[in-house]
């Protein structure tokens, strides 16, 4: 398909065009830049919700139940599920989990035109997301989904990248011994806007809940403690630099039994409440600014590197560097100068 056709199709609600556009973007086809350029002004409307958590906590079931719930509320839902892909073979098993519902509770989420499900491989990338997750989210956004659910790999490593993509980050846990240590290690307490204790019908849910609330409130206390210190600290705290997510928004802890649909409505409420809170406090704009800044710098960085590769004799410089004939700082200066000189010829 041509770019024209794809963009037009995508913006007018053609699933096939959306699906193909994602393929282009995910695989970094030359056309992808053009596609992103053309759809960008149509983005910024969706509420992007990330779900992260350790393997086996039931993220996928939650995603499917949340989808049902948001559909009931009249929202269109796009879903991106990321699975680990091998950096060696490049192979991956994707979406091998939820795919919504058993055969008789056949609410047809699979064939519901208001639901779009796409799996992506992390292709060996760390951090819980696929490289092009951000752009794929934008495609879904431009297509017109109200809610976009992004489910991270969930391989147990720290998957904090989700906050770079999501407006609302949901951290999913379950009552199981050892969680506390795991969570501390993964730094997951820093990233959640909402915490879910799934499989709450297993014993020990209250314990995890209490512990979470304690850990989360402890942060509130330390905010207060800090604010009572020097002026400089107060200013920094007020700027949100440290505790942006805690200030004013104390992450709720919600117990769910996703299999049975328990707690799902409460979770959907919390997600909506968080979005409203962000809109009212201007936090959403702040977060999105952060995001586009990062993306912009990344694009610029890539362009600059491309320029370096195209417009300079960087190979010579590297060779000299390797022979210890010059130092890296001088080398960098040389290259920047050369780029600046030659770039205009572009």
């Amino acid at each position, binding site marked *: 398909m041509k770019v024209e056709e794809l963009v037009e199709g995508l913006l007018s609600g053609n699933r096939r065009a959306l699906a193909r556009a994602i393929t282009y973007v995910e695989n970094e086809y030359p056309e992808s830049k053009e596609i992103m350029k053309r759809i960008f002004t149509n983005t910024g409307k969706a509420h992007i919700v990330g779900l992260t958590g350790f393997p086996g906590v039931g993220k996928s079931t939650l995603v499917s139940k949340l989808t049902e719930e948001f559909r009931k509320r009249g929202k269109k839902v796009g879903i991106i599920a990321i699975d680990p892909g091998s950096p060696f073979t490049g192979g991956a098993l994707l979406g091998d989990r939820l795919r919504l519902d058993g055969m008789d*509770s056949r609410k047809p989420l699979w064939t519901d035109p208001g639901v779009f499900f796409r799996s992506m491989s992390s292709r060996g990338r760390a951090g819980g997301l696929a490289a092009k997750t951000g752009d794929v989210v934008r495609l879904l956004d431009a297509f017109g989904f109200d809610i976009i659910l992004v489910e991270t790999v969930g391989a147990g490593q720290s998957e904090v990248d989700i906050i770079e993509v999501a407006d609302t980050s949901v951290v999913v846990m379950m009552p199981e011994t050892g969680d506390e240590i795991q969570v501390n290690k993964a730094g997951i307490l820093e990233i959640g806007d909402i915490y879910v204790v799934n499989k709450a019908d297993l014993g020990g849910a209250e314990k995890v809940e209490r512990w979470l609330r304690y850990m989360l409130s402890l942060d509130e206390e330390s905010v207060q403690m800090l604010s009572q210190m020097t002026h400089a600290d107060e200013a920094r705290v007020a700027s949100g630099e440290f505790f942006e997510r805690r200030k004013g928004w104390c992450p709720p802890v919600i117990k769910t039994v996703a299999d049975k649909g328990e707690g799902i409505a409460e979770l959907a409420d919390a997600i909506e409440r968080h979005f409203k809170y962000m809109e009212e406090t201007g936090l959403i704009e702040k977060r999105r600014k952060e995001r586009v800044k990062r993306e912009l710098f990344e694009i610029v960085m890539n362009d600059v590197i491309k320029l370096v590769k195209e417009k300079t004799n960087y190979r010579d410089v590297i060779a000299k560097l390797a022979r210890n004939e010059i130092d890296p700082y001088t080398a960098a200066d040389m290259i920047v100068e050369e780029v600046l000189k030659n770039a205009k010829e572009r």
Partner: protein
Amino acid sequence: MTRIDEKRREWEEKCLKPWLQKAGQREERFETLSGVEVKTVYDPLDIEHLDFVKDIGYPGEYPFTRGVYPNMYRGRLWTMRQFSGFGTAEDTNRRWKMLLEEGETGLSTAFDFPTLMGVDSDDPLADGEVGKVGVAIDTLKDFEILFDGIPLDQVSTSFTINPPAGIILAMYVAIAEKQRVPKEKIRGTIQNDMLKEFHAQNTLVLPPEPSLKIIVDIFEWGVENVPKFNLISISGYHIREAGSTAVQELAFTIADGMAYVEAAIERGIDIDRLAPQLSFFFNSHNDFFEEIAKFRAARRMWAKIMRDEYGAKDPRSWWLKFHTQTAGCSLTAQQPLNNVVRTTIQAMAAVLGGTQSLHTNSFDEAWALPSEEAVRVALRTQQIIAYESGIPNVVDPLAGSYYVEWLTDKMEKLAWKYIEDIRKMGDGSMLRGVLRGIENGFFVREISDAAARYQREIEEGKRIVVGVNKFTIEEELRIPILKVDPEVQRRQIERLKKVKAERDNEAVREALEWLRSAAENDENVMPPIMEAVRSYATIGEIMGVLKEVYGTYKKPIII
């Protein structure tokens, strides 16, 4: 023993070693199909730790390693029971009558997928599947046709049915009523084993716990009403077909059996009343000695479990009686006649392992449902073993073989290890352990890994499958294939419509309401199911009520 030990060392040093240096051998390491390493040769030292009286003994006595009956096939041969069914009830009734004429001694029913899953033939989900892999059953009407001219006091009938097992049992009882055969006299088996469905076979409708509750309802009702009927066939067959090893098949089946017994005891059912109505179902695969060892180990384990763990008092309660089917997954589409040979070896293992009944696969089953000719050859295979080979004339003739006794013991030990792991998962309870293993994917993962390992060995040429990855030929395949009349679906739906129009719909409604209230109030569901069946309620309607009360199950995908 020291003499033997010395001799063994001497032989290894002076005889084997130089030979190996000169001639070498085909493989560095030899393994059973399950990956158990086997030595060049076995001797008395390998079974030194076994006690003949305690561990092997005599047939008909604890621990029944050698068979449940004292004289085994010298008394009665095993039941030759060929699994069959296709199309409508009329088609299957005809095939059954042919099999009975050919000398088959028990019936075994294959249902189509809609029936197995508890949906009616007119359900959109049934489209294209009605009567395809078995007979289509919607109401008692179909059963009346299916058993037309087959007196229930003279045959025993086995039903491979799981989520709707109670409904099918009720239908069989209703036919007995119509034929004026007392229900206390009817004989047969319902598979009714949901645990292995969660592990392997995937005929899944209700979640694990209500599935188990209904099974225990059937136990409770069955010991009172149909005392000669096997209320469950605890099945390793499907676990094996899904790719498990023989050890896993043995371990998971015994574990499931323990879970059922514990669930029945929790309900307050007298174990000595229930035990004679439990039966087992195993696979017989290619590794001849390993299969024989598996069957012997299973019997010994179950005897110990029933007597020592659950305190059953009647020696009959310690019996593990089992049906065997040769391994469907071992059949190849290539050079299909080779399957006759595979099936023969597998059938011999089953007989040498002391099976109570046997199904031999037909050679064309990797292509389609078996044709009449292929079914006949399969049955003849059993008859040749029974009447020509001399095998059934001596009980457990392989006992005392150093290798077979060692391997029997090995299988048992490996299986116990699995069972202890499962028990640990359930904090000491096998019932909880098995449910936990279903929930956390333990069983599925174990089986999938074994299946992948097996396939990898074939792909890499480490495992030879004759006609598939070695000794292949270019062949034009022309085997007569049984085709199911495409009109079956239409005819079946028409009959269903007619039944629905003619039955007393008020009676159906009342029976279903009774069922709903029984399910909601945690009462036994069998009496209302019996009533619903008699009023010609459909399987889909009855299952529908249970689904509404208990919810449905979605299996987590574990690859």
